[in-house]
Every structure is written in C-alpha cells, then in structure tokens.
C-alpha cells in the first residue's frame, strides 16, 4: 500500500529516506522522521490492536506517551522481542517489524471480539469477584481460561543480546522537557557557568514548538528551536539528552532518566559494546519541570472506534509528519485549541465537516479564524456518539446541557471518518507527585497543577500556563531563580516573541450525556487500554465505592501501561459528578514511578550476568582453578568446596581429603576469614567487653578462641584472637561476618565507649592464610621455615613470626580440625609463592588440598560449631555447652551477659547442642531433619530439635551429626527419632558433640 494519507509536502520527515517496515506481517514504507504510529496512519492502517477485555478494534488516538491503544510487539528475531512498545514513541527504522499484541486469528477479525460483544454486559467491573466461586476446587480451572486472555505483548524466549548502562551525574539544574519553557530555561542558564542537563522524551527537542502553528519572531517556531539547540550544543556546561524520559522523581531531587540510545536504530544495538539504553542517575540542585500538558479526549458513546482521536494528535500528525489520518473530520471540543486541528485539516486539503463546541458563544481568535475559513461551527453542542465499528462513519451531535447532564433538542448525524476531541488540558504533573506531593486543583485551568516540592519549579503547561509568550517567560524566570539559588550570575537574554492571541474561556467538558442513560447507552470509554467505561464507574459508585482509589481499583481505571494519562481526570470528573462532589473533593490519585515503562534490563544496567555480583578471590584462587576445585559460594567469596581427582564424587573426594588430614597432612585456603588489627592501650579491655570470655591474662603471642554475642545474648560470631603485643591484637572473624564485625566494633567504640583508646583496621585482604593440618604438618613446615617448631618451643595456641619459604610469616598454632595445625599468614602478594613452596613437598608428606566440605566434617568430628549453621540467632553460649567460654565474673557486664538471665534464657529445656550417632552407622542424617522423642505420635508432632550438621566420617567409619535438642545436655544416651518425608524414621543416640579425641591429644603433639 502506498502512503495514501501522506501529504506531498510539509512536516519534519525526510522524504528522500524511505524506510521499509512490517506490521502484522504486511510490508509498508515510511520516511525517516516518522514514528511507527505516523507511518501506520500514513498507510491508512486503522486497526492497530484489540482491546483488553471486550476485544474491540482500536486505532491510534494520540501522538505521544499518552497513547493507550497502539501497543505493539516489536522485534524481528526471538531474542530481540520487546513487548508493549508504544507505536507513537517508536521511531521508524529500516526493517522494523511490529505486531499487534491482541487479536486472533488477526487484529481485523478477532474471535474474542464475539465473546466481548455477547458477554460484555456481564463483564462489568468486578464481575469476577461475583462468580466462579463454587466449587472452590474449580477456581484453578476457571482461572486457567481467564489467564489465557491476560497480557498485552510477550516476553522473548531467549536471553537479551543487548547490554545496558548506568551513568551517574550531578548538576546544578536539571530541566525536564525541551519544549518552549524548557528551552527558554536552558538558554537562560546556559552561560551562567552552572552545570545544566536538559532532557526530552521525544526524538528531537522542541516539544510543542515542533507542532505549533504559532510563529516565533515572525518565523516558524522550529527555526528558533534549531537555533537554541545549536547554542546549547556549543556549551560545555550543558548536556542535552533527547530520546530521554525522566521516568522517576525521587527524594532530594534525585531523578532517573532513561535514554534510548539505539532503540530508534534497530532491534538490537548495531555496534558492539553499545548500550541499548542508558539510565542516568541525576542528582540535581534544582529541577525545572517543563513537562507540558496533555490534552484529554472527550468521553462519548463509541469513542473508541478507530478514527476517534484527540485534537492535538491530529495537528501533530499533520504538521510534524505530514500525515492526515482521514478524509472527513468532525471536531468536538470545549476550548479554542480544538479548533487548530480543524484548521490544520483544512489546510491539508481535506474536508472539515464541522466543529462542535459545547460552549454557547465561542469567540476566541481561533474560532474567528475557523469562521473566516468557512468551517461550520455547531455551538452549544457536542458529539455524543460515534458511528461505525472498524472505523468511524459518522458523528451524532446534539445540543447539550452539561450542568443538567442532558441532551436537548434534535440530533444531527454528520458523516465523517474522523472525530477529533478536546476536553481540555491536564498538566503532566506525574513527576512532581512521585514523592507524595498531592497535585492541586486549579479551577481556572480546569486541571491539577503540581503540589509544592522542594527544589522543583514547574513552568509552562505543567503549571497550567498556556499562552506561548507566558510559557517562554515562565521558563526564563524559573531558570533565573534556580541559577541564582545555586550562586551563579546571569547574562541578559532576549526571549523570542510569539504572536499573542485571544483565547475564549474553556468549558469543563468530560463526559457527554447520551440520549439513553449511561448504563444503557453504547459504551463510553474512559480508560481505553483497560476498557473502563463511564457505566463501569457508575456501577462502582452504585455499589458503594466512593473513594476515587476504590473506584480506580474496582474498575482498573489508570492501571494500564499508559497509567491513565488520557483517562484519569475524566474518570475523576465522572466519579465526582455521580457522587455530587467537586473534582478536588473527589481527590486526585497518587502517581508513582514510572512515568512511562522502563525495561528491567535498563534498570539493572551492567549488573547482570557475570557482573551481577562481585566474586571475591583469594590469592591462591588461580591455583585452585588449575587443580580442578569445585567452589562453594560463601558470601561473595568463591571458596574451594572440594578438589576431586578424576571422576571422584564429592563423597569420595571428601573421604580422601579427610583421611589425608587425619593420617598425613592437608592444606586449606583460609584467607577468607575476617581479620581485624586492633591497636591501642585499651584493646584488651575492649575485647573483654565484646567477647563472652576473659582476655585480661592473655600473654604475648598467645591465641584464644572467643565467642561474640549480641546484647540479646544470642551468639553472632566467633574466632581466634591473638595477642601480638600488650596493646596489639589480631582478631579473626567468620568469613561471612568480617565486614559486619568490624562495623560492630566501630559501633560500640564510636557510640558507647569513645573514651577507650583503641583502633580497628581490616587486614582481611592483606594477609593470606594457609592452614596445614595433620600429623605431618610439623615436618612439612620445617622444610621451609626457620621457626623452631619443637613441641615445647612453639606450643598449641601460640603464634610465631619467622620466614616461611623466604617470606616473612606469622604462624599460628591453632586447630579447627583437632590435628596438629599451623596457620601460615603471609602478605598476600607472596601467598602463591609460599603455597607452591609447600606443594614442592606434596609427595613426601602426602600434602592434600581440601575444601570447605572436608573442613566441615573435620571440625564437626571435634564438635566445633559453625556460627550460622549450628546456630541461628536463637542460640546462647550456654545452649552450645560453651560455658567454658563465658566469663561470668568479668568486671564489665559484657555484651550479651545481661540477657542470659532473662526467664526464657534460663529455661532448663532450651535447645542445646549435642552429638547424634545414628543407630545404623551407614546412615547420614539429613541436615535439617526434625527430631521427635515419640515417633508414633500423630501429626502435628511435638518437635524437640533439629540436626544442624551431619556427615559421614571416614575416621569413625559411620555417619554422625550435631543437633540442637531440647534439654539435650541432660539427655545423653537417650534415643531420638527423625521421621523423614519418605516415611523412614531414623533413630539416633544423643552423645557428646565431641566425637574424636576428646582430650585434644592429637593437636597437642
């Protein structure tokens, strides 16, 4: 089809650049500068979609972000599918492929339309609340069918090939909207030295000036726009962002802008590494809101039939895109600006049947102009019904009494294929309302204007200022105010002059009464996307929904992807009329981000895939990789889990690693443990306050295990702390607790005990830690160290400094396995060298790398807890049987102590840590298995505890577990039961949690 509706001249399209595209599989052409919507209209495509609920045919209504109908599925490949693209905001590009989101078998003949027609009267708002209830089990079946009708477009089935970007910016002044007010503001601020950002959602700057008939300085307004854009571009302090929507306004002038960088070019970013879109995170000292105003359609019967549009859209298509979307036009309006559409239509050489104006005596300049041009004006009247089904065929007109809400006199049927309506203008207040400021009703302008927001100045249309000269002036003045508040001075500026004109007073025109009552008239749509009708709103108020929020929720008014940009005010006005209230009494609704939808990908930015979250590596990570380690995620760390050889299963590998430690020597990369350097004369005192146990007597180079509680008495962390000097300690924390514990220490120091002289510094990343453990550990280490390792010169729970593999090292003789152990700490840059030096003796001593799984088995055999696994925030030191680690008589009431004497923490039957030996030695109990004393009882059973850690021990030759059991400490030797999901009931005996070497002889050799 050729572009039958395209004018041969005019518009801001480039006719030399023809663009091919497809819609619903048919090929069309448009021009560079077109949107998908303008190109479809140029090609005479009437039906672009089917409505959500009633499957009624729908056409293009608007030319901008307010469009409710022309929602399409975009994308020529599976991976590049984009659901719910507004055709009015999608620039045309070569090869663009779009489809309607609803309609089967196709959008012109939709089978669902029949359901809509027949079932329509039953499908009023809330109909599903009133049915499908019985029997209860059937709802899932009913719902399956309801869900089939859900949704507009579809998500792709393949992963997104595009990347997205974030860009953080700070500025003095952010101007949202590059129409006349925004441009005047930017021009004013440009040479002041202030950092200015100006953005606009459209493809190019100019806003209404791109479509206006009004000249500036006697020349087409677009010339002034080009001139300003040129000036701004030359200024280094001004950043211009076209194709950029301010989608969210957040606290303290933080604004998110979504810049579409390649969506106008292709499905997928055409250049490698190019971001499809970019979110700008703007922190602005001042924000000028120049978002303009949105024309409202008029609510009348069948106002959804393709060919019904808003007046400003008709003008925009003609003036900007040189597309006349029909042959014969009827305008229905309550204000002067509706006349412009008729004038433009006529100037394009097409027929204007009539302008129907609800005002009795319209008399503004545009009205006069229309009269002069011989256009018929039907005053005091309105279009109350559109004729036609797939395209408007006529308009029914009658005199109207809006106060009495009735039609008067005779009905006149006008033949036409397009009805343009204008009910007035609604300032685009959304952003100003995002942080909770309620819009304020302006009776004069018949619209809501922004409420007061600190640091935000509304200008032009959004402040209900419409005459062009005043719009320019308001932008200028706001910029002066904003810039001066930031401390900059301004250079004088001359604003362009528009030809002023007299505007007649606008009437408040929302819903037009019909010959029949609203409930019986053909559908009068308020929210086109959600199929909300005036009758639906009437039903909601009839049923007692009197708050506008209730009405919205009951009818779904404003919940579409257009967020009710066209329908909300009409809906409110109708509600107000039905309840006999004014619009401000009915209240406005809250606007939430986003102004227009933003893809998840854009919001996620670069934090996706491999960069979703940091992976933290130790200094030996590359070695682990080469050795084929399997890794466990511990916080953000990648820790070796086990090191399989050949086809070993985890069980086999862990058994081998365990045996190596018990029989020869194993090595663990323990670098991830948190390490905090503590210096200052009050260090010791501080430790005594934050740990449960005593620190006063710890001697030089001695190590001590400590437990840390919160002040509720529950265990939060543990670790070994070493005295390196009288005023110098090195604390270790759990891997997961590292950052939190440092902050915890700072919290107490800074807020409660600033008088204590102590400094805490993280050295977690500085020291690499390798733990060698097993009977051969001493021999192995002696190969490469000058430290005297003799049993009596370097005792258990001591620390030494010396050279290891020619690297200065601190070696701690502590043990988490129960075996003879040395923890070698070196400056991390040398860690790989030392690690490899140890492995030069691999074969001699049977040195075996092991991971966290083996570590867990070995420590559990010794009854050593893992905070977070054997504790869960409800476990005290006493519950763990660690009274030996509690300094009851310390002078300072350490953190956690007081809480231990509350009634519940004193209970004898608290859950206590015990060991479990399954009656069947082959059984490895499930971690998390629940423990009962009586396995024969009925569900719900009385649960008495659970298994916290459970493994197979190659050393014991059987499964074993740690568990928290009610009163467990007093139940040694008793049998407990674990009923499992498959019906098996496991049986185990309560034993001491120390399974191996209770006297600690192995680590003391």
């Amino acid at each position: 089809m050729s572009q039958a509706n395209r004018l041969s001249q005019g518009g801001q399209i480039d006719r030399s650049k023809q663009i091919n595209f497809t819609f619903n599989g048919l090929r069309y052409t448009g021009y560079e500068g077109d949107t998908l919507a303008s190109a479809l209209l140029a090609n005479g495509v009437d039906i672009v979609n089917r409505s959500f609920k009633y499957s009624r045919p729908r056409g293009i209504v608007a030319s901008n972000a307010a469009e409710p109908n022309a929602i399409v599925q975009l994308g020529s490949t599976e991976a590049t599918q984009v659901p719910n693209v507004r055709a009015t905001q999608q620039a045309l590009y070569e090869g663009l492929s779009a489809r309607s989101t609803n309609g089967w078998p196709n959008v012109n003949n939709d089978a669902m339309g029949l359901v809509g027609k027949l079932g329509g009267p039953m499908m009023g708002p809330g109909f599903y609340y009133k049915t499908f209830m019985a029997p209860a089990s059937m709802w899932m079946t009913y719902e399956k069918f309801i869900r089939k009708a859900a949704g507009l477009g579809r998500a792709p089935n393949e992963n997104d090939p595009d990347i997205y970007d974030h860009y953080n910016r700070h500025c003095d002044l952010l101007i949202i909207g590059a129409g006349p007010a925004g441009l005047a503001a930017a021009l004013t601020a440009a040479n002041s030295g202030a950092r200015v950002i100006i953005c606009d959602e459209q493809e190019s700057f100019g806003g209404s000036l791109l479509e206006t008939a009004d000249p500036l300085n006697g020349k087409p307004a677009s010339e002034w726009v080009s001139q300003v854009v040129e000036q701004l571009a030359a200024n280094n302090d001004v950043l211009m962002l076209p194709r950029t929507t301010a989608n969210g306004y957040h606290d303290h002038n933080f604004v998110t802008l979504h810049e579409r960088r390649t969506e106008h070019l292709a499905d997928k970013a055409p250049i490698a590494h190019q971001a499809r879109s970019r979110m700008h995170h703007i922190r602005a000292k001042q924000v000028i809101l120049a978002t303009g105003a949105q024309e409202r359609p008029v609510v009348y019967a069948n106002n959804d039939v393709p060919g019904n549009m808003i007046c400003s859209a008709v003008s925009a298509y003609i003036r900007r895109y040189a597309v006349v979307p029909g042959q014969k036009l009827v305008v229905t309006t309550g204000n002067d600006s509706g006349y412009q559409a008729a004038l433009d239509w006529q100037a394009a050489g097409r027929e204007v049947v009539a302008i129907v104006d609800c005002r009795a005596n319209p008399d503004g300049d545009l009205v006069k102009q229309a009269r002069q041009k011989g256009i018929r004006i039907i005053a005091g009247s309105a279009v109350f019904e559109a004729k036609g089904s797939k395209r408007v065929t006529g308009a029914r007109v009658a005199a109207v009494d809006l106060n009495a809400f009735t039609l008067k006199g005779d009905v006149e049927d006008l033949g036409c294929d397009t009805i343009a309506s204008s009910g007035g203008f609604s300032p685009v207040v959304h952003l100003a309302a995002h942080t909770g400021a309620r819009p304020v009703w302006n009776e004069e302008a018949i619209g809501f204007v922004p409420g007061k927001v600190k640091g935000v100045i509304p200008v032009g249309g959004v402040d209900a200022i419409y005459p062009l000269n005043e719009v320019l002036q308001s932008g200028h003045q706001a910029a002066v105010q904003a810039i001066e508040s930031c401390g900059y001075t301004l250079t004088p500026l001359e604003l362009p002059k528009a030809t002023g004109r007299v505007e007649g007073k606008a009437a408040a025109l929302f819903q037009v009464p019909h010959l029949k009552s609203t409930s019986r008239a053909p559908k009068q749509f308020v929210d086109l996307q959600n199929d909300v009708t005036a009758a639906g709103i009437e039903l909601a108020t009839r049923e007692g929904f009197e708050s506008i929020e209730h009405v919205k929720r009951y009818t779904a008014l404003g919940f579409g992807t257009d967020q009710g940009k066209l329908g909300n005010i009409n809906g409110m006005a109708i509600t107000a009329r039905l309840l006999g209230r004014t619009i401000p009494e009915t209240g406005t609704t809250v606007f939430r981000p986003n102004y227009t939808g933003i893809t998840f990908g854009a919001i996620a930015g670069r934090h996706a895939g491999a960069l979703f979250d940091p992976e933290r590596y130790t200094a030996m990570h590359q070695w682990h990789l080469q050795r084929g380690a399997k890794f466990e995620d511990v916080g953000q760390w990648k820790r070796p889990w086990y090191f399989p050889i050949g086809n070993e299963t985890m069980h086999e590998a862990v058994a081998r690693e365990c045996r190596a430690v018990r029989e020869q020597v194993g090595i663990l990369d323990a670098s991830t443990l948190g390490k905090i350097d503590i210096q200052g004369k009050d260090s010791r005192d501080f430790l005594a306050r934050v740990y449960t146990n005593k620190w006063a007597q710890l001697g030089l180079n001695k190590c001590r295990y400590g437990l840390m509680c919160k002040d509720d008495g529950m265990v939060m962390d543990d670790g070994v702390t070493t005295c390196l000097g009288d005023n110098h300690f090195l604390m270790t924390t759990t891997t997961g607790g590292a950052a939190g514990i440092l902050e915890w220490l700072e919290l107490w120091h800074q807020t409660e005990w600033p008088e204590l002289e102590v400094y805490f510094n993280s050295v977690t990343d500085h020291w690499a830690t390798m733990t060698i453990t097993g009977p051969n550990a001493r021999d192995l280490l002696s190969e490469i160290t000058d430290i005297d390792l003799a049993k009596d010169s370097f005792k258990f729970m001591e620390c030494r400094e010396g050279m290891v593999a020619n690297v200065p090292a601190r070696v701690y003789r502590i043990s988490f396995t129960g075996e003879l152990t040395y923890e070698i700490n070196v400056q991390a840059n040398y860690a790989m060298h030392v690690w490899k030096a140890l492995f030069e003796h691999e074969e001699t001593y049977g040195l075996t790398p092991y991971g966290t799984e083996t570590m867990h088995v070995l420590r559990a055999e010794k009854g050593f807890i893992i905070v977070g696994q054997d504790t869960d925030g409800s476990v005290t030191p006493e519950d763990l049987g660690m009274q030996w680690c509690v300094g009851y008589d310390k002078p300072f009431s350490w953190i956690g102590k007081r809480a231990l004497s509350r009634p519940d923490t004193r209970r004898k039957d608290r859950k206590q840590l015990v060991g479990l030996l399954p009656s069947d030695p082959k059984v490895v109990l499930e971690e998390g298995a629940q423990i009962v004393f009586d396995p024969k009882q009925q569900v719900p059973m009385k649960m008495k505890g659970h298994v916290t850690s459970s493994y197979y021990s190659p050393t014991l030759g059987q499964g074993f577990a740690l568990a928290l059991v009610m009163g467990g400490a007093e139940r040694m030797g008793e049998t407990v039961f674990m009923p499992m999901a498959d019906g098996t009931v496991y049986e185990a005996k309560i034993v001491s949690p120390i399974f191996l070497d209770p006297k600690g002889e192995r680590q003391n050799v």
Partner: protein
Amino acid sequence: MSNVAVFDQNAGIGVLAESPLAHVSGVKGGHTPGVVIHEKAFLGYLTLRGNSADSSFCSGVEQALGMPLPTEPLSLHQNQQKGSSIQWLSPDEWLIVVQGGTEYETEMALRTELSSHFAVVNISGGQTLLTLSGSAAQDVLHKSTVYDVHPRNFPVGKAVATNFAKATAIIRRPSEGTWELIVRRSFADYCYRWLIDASQEFGVDYE
C-alpha cells in the same frame, strides 16, 4: 611485653610476588583508545590512625613522611620526590601509599616520631592501584560510582572512598588527566572486569 608488633613483611630474594591482577591478560583498544588502564602493582600501603588535633601527631607525621598530614577532609598530599602520598580517609584515619618495599621503614619512621595514641597498620598485600587515563576515563567513572567525579567537584588533589560498582574503591585525582583507583585485593578481579566492560565502548587499553 612490647606494646605493638612491628614486622618487616617484605620477602627475601627469589620470591615471586603476585599482584591481585596477575592472572588477567592485556586488552588492546585500537589506535586511539578512550580509556587506558594500568596497574601499579606492589606499592606499599599503610593505614595511619591518630588524633589530628594533637599537634605533635601532625608534626610527627610530617617529619616522618616529608609531607604534611592532610587535615582537610578528602584531601591528598603527595611527596613527588619519594613517590609517596597520604590521603585523608576519616577524621582519624589516613592512607599512606609508598614505593613498594619501603612500607616497613615508613612504619618505623612513623613509630619513631609518634607517641600517645595512634596506630600504623601495613595493608600492602590487600590492595592494588589502577590508573585511568584517556579522553573517556571520566565517563567510565561516571558509570561506576555514585560519587560526583565532575572536575568541578573533584579537583586535582582530592581523594574519596566510595562505592565502585558493587564493590568499594578509593578514587584519587593526583594530576590532570590521571585518575587512580585503589581497590581491595579480593575485589580486584571484579573491578577489573567491570572497568573493561564499562570502557569497551570507548576503546580500552589495559597493560
């Protein structure tokens, strides 16, 4: 018992040190890369804690380092001769960066000069420094940090600890045209991958 353990942690001869980015390979970004990233490995890093209201602390630090203690928040002082620097991190915390291998003598010098309540901690193994230069270096920072890196807010001589992607970093501006990033060892690989990813559209060289 001595009060504090001071320990020369520099390795002897024949020890191969590995920086946190030893495993990554270079990247070439065409003829005119917008971003040039370079790792300055193996510098010495010391955390200094103390009371800047104590004039003897200030003078002691200046004596030991040959540059004054920065007491103005977020400022960076450099000793060009020694190739060292000290930056403000918090009212009682500073980061000293010295040539690799001199951290022990620097610590000893500080300990000689300082008395009363202070701390010096060697953290040389825990960080690495990346320099960023090129026409798009600032753009890459805008993509990576919430801090305002516009030159008007971030003049030469400023140093800020802040968020870097989902990690943290110290961002410094030692001279026109060069930015420095100090990142923690365990996050270095992530920061490197992030930087390359964010820089690629401008063309990036990494040596």
